[in-house]
């Protein structure tokens, strides 16, 4: 029995046992459902083995929404615990685990897959490509992310969750202070997901550089594609740093090395530095695609071309460079001295300049535009003021001398939520609503969508503005309770109410998806928003080959040119189309990675070696396989195009 004891939860509670039962029942329900409806073949053929960028995008999207639910439940539990002074809903250990997993799930398993979902779906369509450069690698990226997310989530019921914060600072995250396997989950699951992200980065850089439609020079790319290109460059240069940091952390925990320990020469601050050398660019990996989405949405619904295209590109390039030069501002108080702090203070505040340029460009795009207030546009309009408040308080935190007052208080928590939520979450919801008809062939209900947008915006403000005040009053972050005498009670109750409003907003979005799936008309045509870029030039939903004829473009708004300036997008006739074939190897290989990760976490060395051999077997199989894809004949294209309601081109 000793062998099995390691899998036990170190600190169980009725809630965890209830979740175990819930997870077990869900798994049984899914298996039974698939068997009863005889859908195993369908799932395997159409989804698990697909290499189609659109389907991979949709799978990323579903995973991101599921993880949003998980992270959201964490958030509600935290706000409930803090709603009143001296609350005993959660104890200190559970609170530690919940804020740790909330951070990791929201950043790495919700926001990242959400942006990658939209990039996957939209970028190849926006540049007029058939797929990404390496379709099978794309599938591998997704499945690595997916299994890593599953691995991270089972920590909750097998062995215990990580509890050292999403930053996992050493020596707290070392074996001495975090003896159970939770932090192993952190190190290994993020490592596996990071591999997938790195592959995505390489894949999209090559796709964007090599597969653009004829006539689309770099400076004629739609702004979302530009933001995706720059984001992926940051991914390629930032993620290897995380790879090494996590590898060193893993070795400290599993093999007793002394990288980050406090004895035998180890240096705990090295972890903090490496983590944030990755971590700060990561923030921009999330925000730049969001900026790209806002650029698309604002220009579409202001019925104007984007103001300052070149300065938009230039500011993103500058942001991407600066993102690597500011990491120390995350730990001004940890003893670098005044000189180093001053340098990083200046670089931090300098980033506000290119960001400000972007905000003004959006405002100038609205100027004299014929604004149509759709749901995506509403999110964009709510984003600008709230994000600006979050951003300006960031400049306050960036002043290193003043930071000694704000550091590790709720003021900081208010700041980063007020940039990430309007910056990233609003953008993802705007993008989701905007591209939904292209993905599924019907629109989300506008009325419910706007209600949700307002509730989420109001909820964000009510939840996080009070934290500025309680933070300045001295409420530390990550404290699981406080006494009545502190006077924080009122502000935390307000935050709790705000969190409740946010939750209602998200429930409304789920309801909207249900409602629109049932009742929305399917007769929306290819271009329901009267948009400007190439993805709207093909059918909704998109046929598997994207475009029957490769489009030819001469500006960043090719479809608008066709509609208003008589530009002809599709010239010539149908040709046979070459497509990549399906493969189950990415799924199988990632599943083996899951087993490998699990074995590493629990130090099951034989299983680790066997699964590592399995991973190599998959690599060898791929190397020796001869696969030239398949062709879609002209006849099939004609049939599909006729069925989709008239040929495009």
């Amino acid at each position, binding site marked *: 029995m000793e062998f099995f004891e390691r899998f036990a939860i170190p600190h169980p509670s009725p809630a965890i046992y209830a979740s175990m039962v819930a997870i077990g029942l869900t798994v049984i329900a899914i298996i039974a459902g698939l068997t009863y409806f005889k859908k195993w073949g369908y799932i395997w053929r159409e989804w698990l083995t697909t290499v189609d960028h659109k389907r991979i995008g949709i799978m990323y999207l579903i995973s991101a929404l599921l993880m949003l639910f998980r992270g959201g439940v964490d958030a509600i539990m935290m706000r409930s615990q803090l709603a009143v002074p001296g609350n005993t809903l959660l104890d200190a250990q559970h609170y530690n685990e919940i804020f740790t997993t909330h951070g990791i799930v929201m950043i790495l398993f919700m926001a990242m897959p959400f942006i990658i979902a939209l990039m996957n779906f939209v970028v190849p369509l926006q540049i007029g490509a058939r797929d990404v*450069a*390496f379709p099978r690698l794309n599938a591998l990226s997704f499945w690595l992310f997916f299994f890593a997310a599953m691995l991270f989530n089972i920590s909750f019921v097998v062995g215990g969750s990580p509890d050292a914060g999403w930053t996992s600072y050493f020596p707290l995250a070392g074996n001495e202070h975090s003896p159970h396997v939770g932090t192993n989950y952190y190190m290994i699951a993020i490592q596996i997901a990071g591999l997938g992200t*790195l592959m995505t*980065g*390489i*894949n999209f*850089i*090559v796709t964007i*550089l*090599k*597969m653009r439609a004829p006539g689309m020079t770099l400076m004629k790319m739609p702004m979302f594609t530009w933001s995706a290109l720059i984001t992926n460059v940051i991914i*390629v*240069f*930032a*993620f*290897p*740093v995380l*790879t*090494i*940091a996590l*590898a*060193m952390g893993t*070795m400290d925990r599993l*093999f*007793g*090395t*002394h*990288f980050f*320990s406090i*004895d*035998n*020469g*180890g*240096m705990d601050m*090295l972890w903090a530095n*490496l983590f944030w*050398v990755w971590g700060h660019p990561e923030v921009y990996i999330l925000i730049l695609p969001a900026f790209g989405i806002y650029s698309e949405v604002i220009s579409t619904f202001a019925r104007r071309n984007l103001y300052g295209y070149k300065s938009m590109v230039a500011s993103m390039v500058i942001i991407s460079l600066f993102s690597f030069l500011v990491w120390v501002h995350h730990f001004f108080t940890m003893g670098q001295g005044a000189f180093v702090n001053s340098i990083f203070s200046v670089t931090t505040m300098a980033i506000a300049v290119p960001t400000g340029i972007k905000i003004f460009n959006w405002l100038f795009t609205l100027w004299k535009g014929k604004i149509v207030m759709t749901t995506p546009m509403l999110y964009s309009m709510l984003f600008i003021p709230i994000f600006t408040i979050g951003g300006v308080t960031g400049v306050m935190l960036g002043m290193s001398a003043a930071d000694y007052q704000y550091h590790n208080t709720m003021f900081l928590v208010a700041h980063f939520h007020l940039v990430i939520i309007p910056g990233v979450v609003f953008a993802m919801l705007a993008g989701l609503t905007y591209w939904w008809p292209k993905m599924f062939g019907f629109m989300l209900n506008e009325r419910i969508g706007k209600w949700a947008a307002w509730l989420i915006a109001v909820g964000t403000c009510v939840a996080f503005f009070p934290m500025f005040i309680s933070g300045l009053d001295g409420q530390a972050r990550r404290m699981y309770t406080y006494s009545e005498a502190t006077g924080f009670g009122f502000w935390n109750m307000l935050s709790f109410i705000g969190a409740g409003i946010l939750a209602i907003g998200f429930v409304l979005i789920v309801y909207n998806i249900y409602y629109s799936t049932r009742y929305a008309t399917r007769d929306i045509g290819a271009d329901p928003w009267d948009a400007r870029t190439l993805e709207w030039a093909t059918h909704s939903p998109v046929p598997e080959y994207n475009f029957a004829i490769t489009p030819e473009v001469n500006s960043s708004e090719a479809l608008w040119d066709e509609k208003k300036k008589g530009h002809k997008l599709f010239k010539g006739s149908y040709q046979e189309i070459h497509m990549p074939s399906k493969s189950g190897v990415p799924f199988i290989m990632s599943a083996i990675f899951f087993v490998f990760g699990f074995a590493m976490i629990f130090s099951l060395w034989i299983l680790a070696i066997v699964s590592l051999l399995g991973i*190599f077997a998959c690599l*060898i199989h791929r*190397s*020796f396989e*001869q696969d*030239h894809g398949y062709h879609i004949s002209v006849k099939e294209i004609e049939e599909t195009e006729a069925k989709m309601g008239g040929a495009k081109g």
Partner: protein
Amino acid sequence: MKIDHSQPLEYGTEQNKMNILGFWIFLGAEIMLFGTLFASYFTLENRIGSGPSGADIFEITPIIIETFLLLTSSFTIGLAIHAMRLGRQKAMLTFFGITLVLGLAFLSVEIYEFFHYVHVGAGLQTSAFSAILLTTLGTHGAHVTFGLLWGLGIILQIKKRGLTVETTNKSFIFSLYWHFLDVVWIFIFSFIYLKGLM
């Protein structure tokens, strides 16, 4: 499949060109990976705890042998690609094989070196310095090991299928990888060994 005969065979199709570009970008990520290891090495270099320092444990003879072996293998993989472009499959396979044998010899000496370090008391758990030294060398060594398996796979495929659009593409990409490992070794040689011995 359209093959463009104005280009060398490894660049012959659009997919081939994308594969090569993608691999260059991957090497960019690898530079960051090793860059992080070097930055950590320089940070931890003098934090030896109660263990030995670099000057105490580095031995020049195996290091020179390793350097000689790996630099020569970088030359022979260049010759292999040259032969491949001339379409001389047998010469290509010979040089490819010599490259892998040299790589294997390098790896053997490195394994000896690791035994030596552990023997003189610089194991993985001794100090921050010994850990980052063995991790940096080990990461490079793991890359070489992976390269040996990969290269063997390519040799088998060329024997079976000849010099095709795919096998030449793979061989060329492998040569980029192998040259890259050589470049990393030059940094290891200069900034870990020579700096440590001085």
